[in-house]
């Protein structure tokens, strides 16, 4: 088992290393397949490890590898480098490597048009590195390893968002993701330090065992800090702003990192630390509310967007909100269940979107017309032209909308039921409203793209994507359709439940208040079905039957429409509140305080282009005096503090 787990972790890394070392000598296709093969191998190893776990009794299904070595610090602080493989880790590993593999395969087709061999290889190196980092995040046996993985996935995401760096806005998007995530990572790092000072250890087992002995206020502080970290990585209010822009990266990357895996790391973290969060009830309430409000907020934005990837981005934020609602109300299993199904259907939708864009680009090329391949207003009628893409996309949309019997239906309903049965009726209500909106926007998207007549020459000449892209779509479609039924039926007692429940046993102790308003799970299931169908029906009415005219609505509710269209002006608000003042301060400190009077030449080397004259002035000790002035000011302050105020 030990070898297996280390192999699981290191195989994708080896893939990246081999591609770096040998890449130049390999044909590009080989490089792509090599990377895919590494992930496939990791997936197989993951399956084997899971089977071994399955052979054990349910309570003993948590394997910690012997410590490879201790990453020790002076004094009491120790970080054992070891891996933990339990039910939760197994689920995450299978999702990461499974979906990861499909997306690798898809990428071989998708990136085939990349002109430079170099870029093609670079892409797969990053992708393999990402899988490695994500596995490290999931498999680490303590918070520090998780943090290491957390930072590395962030780096990979940053590199991949700005992959096509020649477009300036892509680089900007990468930077934005980076900066916003800094905020979250800052809180996360502090949380770890606090855990260490409160528990004297960062190893999961030690920490969770000692929860009872720690003051509730400390627990609240720790969990809040961890949660702020989650809002960054998992794009929740108020730190979600980077995710929509992150769609600038290649579409398979959006599918893998910004939908299926990395962004769910926050959910994983809370599920992993469920013992802490369950004990910190006020934090859990905050988590639930932030989650459900994010879900609603993002869904309202998604409903008016016209960029095919942007809709999906906001829907990802919204669905992540659901997952946080789940962990917030203590429905950990449901949240992870939704994480899994969401990985399937959202990866499917993103890859489908990529296929659509591929098709439209082909058409645009054919028609000699220049259109934005992501603008849904230019599409329509693709059902006939890209049938397989259409079918799979329909499956994805249905699962996202939560149409009965699709995978999203079971998992989402379970979260809502969890909220309801724990007595959070208000949360349930908001969640249900969001479910309605979700169904509406997901079918709006489907109909805008596939139904009706083509609205541009490019759409008219669109052509189906190559098979290497369609096969992953088909596999994901099957999963998105069937996973719910296979894993989650009957509700609360499906495969996934029996598998995961023991992992959350500690956290579930003492909760489980029966009740709500006396509605049975089956009734709730029914309500969810109706809501989903209603939402889908509304979209059908508006975009296919034209019973309702969306354009007229948008005119009628113009202020609301403008507000949504501009995404509540949050980006602008942040720019005003944080970005500008910050750069103002930086410039002030660097230019005014450190230089007093700066001319551009100073920043370059003093390469004397301005001639000796300008230099001569500076050499006359001009700046020396300014520096000396600041030193004396400092000396006065230090002296004043020690001699007068300090006494």
């Amino acid at each position, binding site marked *: 088992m030990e070898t297996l787990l280390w192999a699981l972790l290191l195989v994708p890394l080896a893939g990246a290393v081999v591609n770096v070392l040998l890449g130049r000598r390999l044909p590009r296709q080989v490089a792509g397949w090599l990377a895919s093969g590494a992930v496939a191998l990791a997936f197989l190893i993951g399956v084997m490890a899971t089977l071994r776990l399955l052979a054990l009794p349910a309570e003993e299904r948590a394997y910690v590898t012997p410590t490879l070595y201790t990453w020790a610090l002076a004094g009491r602080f120790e970080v054992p480098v070891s891996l933990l493989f339990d039910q939760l880790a197994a689920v995450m590993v299978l999702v990461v490597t499974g979906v990861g593999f499909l997306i690798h395969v898809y990428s071989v087709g998708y990136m085939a048009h990349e002109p430079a061999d170099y870029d093609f290889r670079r892409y797969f190196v990053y992708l393999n590195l990402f899988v490695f980092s994500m596995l490290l995040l999931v498999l680490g046996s303590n918070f520090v390893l998780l943090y290491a993985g957390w930072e590395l996935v962030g780096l990979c995401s940053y590199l991949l968002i700005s992959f096509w760096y020649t477009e300036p806005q892509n680089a900007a998007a990468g930077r934005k993701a980076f900066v916003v995530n800094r905020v979250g990572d800052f809180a996360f790092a502090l949380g770890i330090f606090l855990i260490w000072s409160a528990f004297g250890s960062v190893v999961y087992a030690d920490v969770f065992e000692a929860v009872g002995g720690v003051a509730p206020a400390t627990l609240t502080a720790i969990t809040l800090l961890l949660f702020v970290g989650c809002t960054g990585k998992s794009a929740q209010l108020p730190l979600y702003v980077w995710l929509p822009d992150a769609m600038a990266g290649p579409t398979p990357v959006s599918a893998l990192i910004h939908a299926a895996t990395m962004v769910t790391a926050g959910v994983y973290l809370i599920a992993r630390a469920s013992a802490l969060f369950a004990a910190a009830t006020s934090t859990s309430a905050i988590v639930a509310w932030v989650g459900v409000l994010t879900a609603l907020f993002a869904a309202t934005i998604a409903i008016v967007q016209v960029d095919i990837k942007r809709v999906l981005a906001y829907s990802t934020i919204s669905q992540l909100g659901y997952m946080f609602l789940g962990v917030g109300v203590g429905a950990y299993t449901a949240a992870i269940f939704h994480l899994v199904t969401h990985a399937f259907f959202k990866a499917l939708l993103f890859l489908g979107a990529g296929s659509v864009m591929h098709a439209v680009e082909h058409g645009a090329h054919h028609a000699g017309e220049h259109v934005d391949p992501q603008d849904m207003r230019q599409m329509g009628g693709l059902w006939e032209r890209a049938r397989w893409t259409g079918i799979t996309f329909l499956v994805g949309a249905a699962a996202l909308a939560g149409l009965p019997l699709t995978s999203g239906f079971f998992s989402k309903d379970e979260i809502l039921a969890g909220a309801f049965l724990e007595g959070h009726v208000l949360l349930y209500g908001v969640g249900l409203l969001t479910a309605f909106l979700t169904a509406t926007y997901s079918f709006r998207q489907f109909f805008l793209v596939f139904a009706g007549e083509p609205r541009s020459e490019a759409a008219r000449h669109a052509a189906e994507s190559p098979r290497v892209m369609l096969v992953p779509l088909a596999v994901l479609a099957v999963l998105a359709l069937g996973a719910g039924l296979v894993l989650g039926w009957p509700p609360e007692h499906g495969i996934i439940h029996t598998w995961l429940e023991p992992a959350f046993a500690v956290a579930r102790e003492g909760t489980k208040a029966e009740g709500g308003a006396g509605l049975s799970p089956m009734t709730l299931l029914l309500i969810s079905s109706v809501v989903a169908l209603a939402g889908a029906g509304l979209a059908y009415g508006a975009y296919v039957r034209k019973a309702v005219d969306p354009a007229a609505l948008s005119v009628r509710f113009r202020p609301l429409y403008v507000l949504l269209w501009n995404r509540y002006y949050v980006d602008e608000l942040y720019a005003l509140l944080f970005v500008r003042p910050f750069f103002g301060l930086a410039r002030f400190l660097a230019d005014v305080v450190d230089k007093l009077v700066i001319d551009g030449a100073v920043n370059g080397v003093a390469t004397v282009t301005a001639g000796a004259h300008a230099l001569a002035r500076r*050499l006359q000790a001009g700046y020396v005096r300014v520096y*000396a002035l600041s030193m004396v000011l400092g000396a006065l302050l230090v002296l004043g503090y020690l001699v007068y105020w300090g006494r």
Partner: protein
Amino acid sequence: MIVPVSYYLVLGAILFSIGVTGVLLRRNAIMVFMSIELMLNAVNLSFVAMSRALDSLDGQVFVFFVMTVAAAEVAVGLALIVAIFRSLGSADVDDAHVLKG
């Protein structure tokens, strides 16, 4: 010791502050350098006065070392100033217009 030690120390403090002011005020590297020498001189005066008041020679020995270090610094500093002067070229320094910039 008839004049109280504090007189000497206050004088030292004043001289030190004048030296600091000189560093802040002067543009010419040589004058800045001289002001620094003035600061060291003030430190030396304080050392000697304290040494006398405390009946110990440590302060006076310190003055020796300060002087030696100052000598070493002067050698380096003046060579540096000469080197810069040479790099800029004599014509430039003579030309007041250039230096006014």
